[in-house]
């Protein structure tokens, strides 16, 4: 069947503002949006830019705004969308580098703020730092994040405050704060307690709707809020 794509194009050197360009491709109902974009790029217009790598929803490169909602192009099939033209835009609220490619530098900076690595000042054990299955369960869901930025870009609190840590960084903060092997919870909690931190979350749930890994991000942010109002820093 023929599928029409309306793709937002923007080349900073030439354009003052983004515009939409239409492409018609041949696709099956189970063709992914990423395959359609590849088709367009390879056969119709080699100037179209977008990020992708794995094609299997694990690298997190291909997050974009498809029919008004953020998600992975490689995980969204034509049949998942309403019939009619498919609109593709870059992730909202990030600076556009070109077409569907956005600048994620600041996104990663925030990620670094919460120190996304294990900190433990105790003596180094001979073997691994053992966790019980229950302890692992506390952080299991939060470890499945692929850092695609779909959540942060979908969040109205982030649209309003460029410095808001955002759901993705907060989820990663949870992942270490509630890791029983980590000893730096207090330090990380004070980072997320910032005025651009966890209390900017107004439980809008756009992040949960966007997350391609179906992580209940809001629930993790809520746990951080609870930790902050119940512990003395």
């Amino acid at each position, binding site marked *: 069947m023929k599928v029409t794509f309306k793709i937002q194009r923007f080349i900073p050197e030439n354009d003052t503002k983004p515009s939409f360009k239409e492409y018609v491709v041949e696709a099956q109902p189970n063709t992914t949006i990423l395959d359609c974009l590849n088709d367009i790029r390879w056969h119709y217009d080699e100037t179209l830019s977008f990020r992708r790598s794995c094609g299997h929803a694990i690298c997190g490169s291909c997050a974009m705004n498809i029919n008004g909602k953020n998600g992975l192009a490689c995980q969204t099939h034509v049949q998942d969308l309403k019939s009619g033209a498919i609109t593709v835009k870059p992730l909202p609220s990030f600076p556009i580098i070109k077409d569907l490619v956005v600048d994620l530098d600041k996104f990663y900076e925030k990620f670094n703020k919460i120190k996304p690595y294990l900190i433990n000042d105790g003596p180094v054990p001979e073997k691994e730092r053992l966790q019980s299955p229950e302890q692992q369960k506390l952080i299991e869901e939060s470890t499945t994040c692929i850092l695609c930025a779909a959540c942060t870009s979908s969040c109205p609190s982030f649209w309003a405050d460029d410095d808001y840590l955002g759901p993705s960084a907060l989820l990663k903060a949870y992942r270490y704060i509630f890791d029983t092997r980590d000893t730096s919870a207090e330090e990380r909690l004070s980072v997320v307690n910032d005025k651009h931190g966890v209390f900017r979350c107004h*439980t809008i749930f756009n992040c949960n709707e966007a997350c391609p890994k179906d992580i209940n991000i809001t629930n993790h942010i809520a746990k951080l809020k609870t930790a902050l109002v119940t512990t003395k820093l």
Partner: protein
Amino acid sequence: MKKNVYELKYRYHTGSVAWVLHRLSGLALILYLVLHIWVISNLNNPAGFNKVMAFLNEPLFKLLELGLWGVIIYHAINGLRVILVDFFGGSKNQKKLFWGVVVVGIVVFIAGAVPFIGNLK
């Protein structure tokens, strides 16, 4: 590219609609409070106050009062939903909780609106 763009066309769903309504009802309550304080401040001048009160007896204001009742109910009960989400693990059931807010809200609204309309005569 400019930052701080509100993506008003971003796909809406239960959670974001609940939030938008919460914000709008909050703004409406602020507006009401300002008007309320203004009305009360007329007490400085009894004759003026009576005039304002007579004006507020117009049917239009009765209708607005009923609207105010709805706005208060939504803001209060959805506020409880937000507390459940933030501190009592309610996020897993946030959509059901929203529909709970709607159902309880309608019941409370009717419970208040019936005597209110009855007293108008």
